[in-house]
C-alpha cells in the first residue's frame, strides 16, 4: 500500500498539544507535533544541506512514543517523520554522538564476537557464583535469550527458565538497537543480524527478548520482514505469562506493597504487550493499581526514543517526565514496575531528581522474587 503524506491532512486542531508529555512540560513550538510534522516534511522532501541544523531539535527532541498519533483525529504518524528525519540528519553527520558510538560498538561486537566470548563467559561465571544460578552461554538450546547489560536483565530470567527446566541459552549480545534511535535502518538490520546468526549457531527455534521496549518492537515487527518467520520472536514477559497460565511456575509469595505498572510506549501502545504484564502482576501483587490514563493511552516516561542515552538531553527529559511523575504519585504506589530498560532508567532518574520515594522493578524481577 502506498504511503501518504500525513502532514497533508493535519488541520492544526491542537489535539497533539495535550497528548504530548514534552509539549505539556515546555510549551515550546518545536515540541508541538503539528509544527514538527510540517517542518520535518521539508527536510524529507528536499536536500537541505547546510540548513540541516535547523531541523535537529525537531527530530531529536521527541521520544517517538506515538501518543499524539493515537489521539490524532487523522492518525498523523509524527514518529515516522521524526525517525526518517533522524536518519537523514545522521547520514549527513548530525547526530547525538553517544547514540552513534553505541550503535557502532554494537556492530563491531557482532563482527568480533569470538574475541568477546571468553571475557563474557568469565563474567557470567562470576554472576553464576554470586547469585548461585545456572546460566548457559551459547549452548545448543531451544530458546536464545537476549539480555541487556546488567545482571538484573539476566539473573531473574535465568531463575524462571531454570525453574521450569527450559532449554535456553544466553546471548552474548544485548537486545537494544541504538541505530533505531538514529533512524538508520541499515545499521538496525546489521545489529539485528548478529542475533539471527547467533540463533542459528545454537540451533534455537525461538528468540526471547528481555524487558526492552524498542528492541521488542524491532525484533517483533522488523525481524520477520528481513529474515523470515522461521525463528519465533517473543518477549520474556510473554514467555513467563505462558508459564504462569500453564501452571509451570508456582507463585509462592505475594507482594504486599501497592504496585503500579507503567506501559512502555514501544512495548504497549506500539508493540501490543498490554495484558501480559498485567496478568503477571495480578498473580503476584495483592494491591495492583492502574495509572490514569493507562494501557495504549499511557503517557511516555520521557526517556524514550534514545533520550536516556543522550547526556545533553537530560534536562529536557527530566522536565518531560513530570507528567509521568504526577501519574505515579496519584496511584500512591510504592513499587513502579515496567518492562523497558529506558523507562526504568528514566523512572529512577525522576525519583532521584524530584525526591520521590518508590522502587523501580521489572515485571520479570518481581515474578522471580515470588517463585
Amino acid at each position, binding site marked *: 500500500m502506498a504511503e*501518504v503524506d500525513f502532514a497533508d491532512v493535519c488541520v492544526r486542531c*491542537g*489535539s497533539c498539544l495535550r497528548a504530548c508529555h514534552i509539549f505539556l512540560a515546555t510549551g515550546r513550538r518545536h515540541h*508541538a507535533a503539528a509544527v514538527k510534522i510540517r517542518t520535518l516534511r521539508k527536510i524529507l522532501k528536499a536536500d537541505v544541506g547546510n540548513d540541516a541544523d535547523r531541523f535537529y531539535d525537531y527530530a531529536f527532541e521527541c521520544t517517538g512514543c506515538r501518543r499524539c498519533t493515537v*489521539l*490524532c483525529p*487523522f492518525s498523523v504518524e509524527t514518529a515516522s*517523520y521524526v525517525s526518517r528525519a533522524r536518519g537523514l540528519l545522521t547520514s549527513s553527520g548530525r547526530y547525538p554522538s553517544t547514540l552513534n558510538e553505541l550503535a557502532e560498538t554494537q556492530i563491531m561486537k557482532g563482527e568480533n564476537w569470538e574475541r568477546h566470548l571468553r571475557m563474557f563467559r568469565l563474567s557470567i561465571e562470576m554472576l553464576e557464583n554470586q547469585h548461585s544460578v545456572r546460566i548457559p552461554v551459547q549452548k545448543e538450546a531451544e530458546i536464545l535469550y537476549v539480555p541487556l547489560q546488567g545482571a538484573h536483565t539476566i539473573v531473574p530470567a535465568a531463575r524462571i527458565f531454570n525453574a521450569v527446566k527450559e532449554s535456553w541459552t544466553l546471548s552474548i549480545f544485548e537486545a537494544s538497537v541504538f541505530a533505531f534511535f538514529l533512524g538508520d535502518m541499515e545499521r538496525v538490520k546489521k545489529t539485528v543480524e548478529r542475533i539471527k546468526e547467533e540463533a542459528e549457531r545454537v540451533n534455537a527455534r525461538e528468540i526471547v527478548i528481555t524487558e526492552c521496549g524498542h528492541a521488542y518492537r524491532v525484533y517483533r515487527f522488523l525481524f520477520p520482514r528481513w529474515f523470515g518467520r522461521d525463528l519465533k520472536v517473543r518477549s520474556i514477559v510473554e514467555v513467563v505469562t505462558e508459564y504462569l497460565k500453564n501452571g509451570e511456575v508456582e507463585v509462592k509469595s505475594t507482594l504486599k506493597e501497592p504496585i503500579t505498572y507503567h506501559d512502555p510506549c514501544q512495548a504497549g501502545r506500539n508493540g501490543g504487550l498490554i495484558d501480559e504484564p498485567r496478568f503477571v502482576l495480578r498473580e503476584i501483587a495483592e494491591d495492583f493499581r492502574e495509572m490514569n490514563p493507562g494501557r495504549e493511552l499511557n503517557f511516555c516516561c520521557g526517556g524514550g526514543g534514545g533520550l536516556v542515552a543522550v547526556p545533553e538531553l537530560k534536562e529536557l527529559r527530566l522536565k518531560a517526565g513530570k507528567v509521568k511523575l504526577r501519574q505515579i504519585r496519584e496511584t500512591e504506589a510504592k513499587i513502579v514496575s515496567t518492562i523497558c530498560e529506558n523507562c526504568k532508567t528514566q523512572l529512577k532518574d525522576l525519583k532521584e531528581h524530584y525526591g520521590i520515594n518508590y522502587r523501580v522493578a521489572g515485571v520479570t524481577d518481581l515474578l522471580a522474587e515470588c517463585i
Partner: protein
Amino acid sequence: MMDFVFTSLPYITFTAFISGLIWRIWRFFRAGVPSYPLFPMASQDNFQKFKSYLTQVLLFAPLFKNDRKLWGLSWMFHLSLFLIVAGHFRMFLGIRIDERLAFTLGSFFGLVFLISVVILLFRRFGEVRVVSTLEDYVILILLVFIALSGLAMRFSGNHYDLSAYASSLITLSPQIPEYDIFLLIHAFLAQLLIAYLPYGKLFHSIGAFVTSYYPLRWQNG
C-alpha cells in the same frame, strides 16, 4: 459584479476545484513517508477494524478521548456544515419540503455553525495559537463572513430559489439572479472557499478517509 460572480466565476471555481483535487491527490499519495509496522491497534478482526475506522472518521473518537471540549466543538461545526450543504443541494435541485421547516432548520444550524466558527477562531488566539498559521485564520474569517451573509439573506425576508439558476448553469447558459448584496457576497466568498478546498488544509475532508485506515493496516507483524 453580479454578472461575473454568477456567470464566469462558477466555471472558474469548478475548474480550479477539479484540477486542484487531481493534483493534490497525486501529491498526497506520492510524497509519503513510510511508517514502521506496528501492533494492530484495533484488532485482527475485520469487523472490529471497520468499526474502529468508522468511529474515527464519523465520530472523531480520538478527539473524544483526548479533548472533550474540542470534540464537541468539532462535532457542532461539522454536523451543522454537513446539514447546511445538504440544505443548499436541496434548494439547487428544487426539492420541495415544508418551507417553515426548511427555514427553521436552516436558521438554527446556520446559527450553530456561526457560533462554532467564532469559538474555533477564538481558540486560534488562545490555546492553539502556537500551532496556528495564517491559513487557519483566513479560512475561519472567511467562514464567518459566509455564515453572516447567508444568515442575512435568511433574515432579510427575501425568498431565494436558485434551482432555475442551477439548471441554467449546467446547460452552460447561466441566467443572473435578481440583484441582492447579501447574495452577491455569499456566492462570491463561498466560491472562493470551494476553489481553495483542494489546495490547503481543507483537503482533510478527503485525506482523513485515507489516513484513518493506516493504523489498522498492519497484519500480525
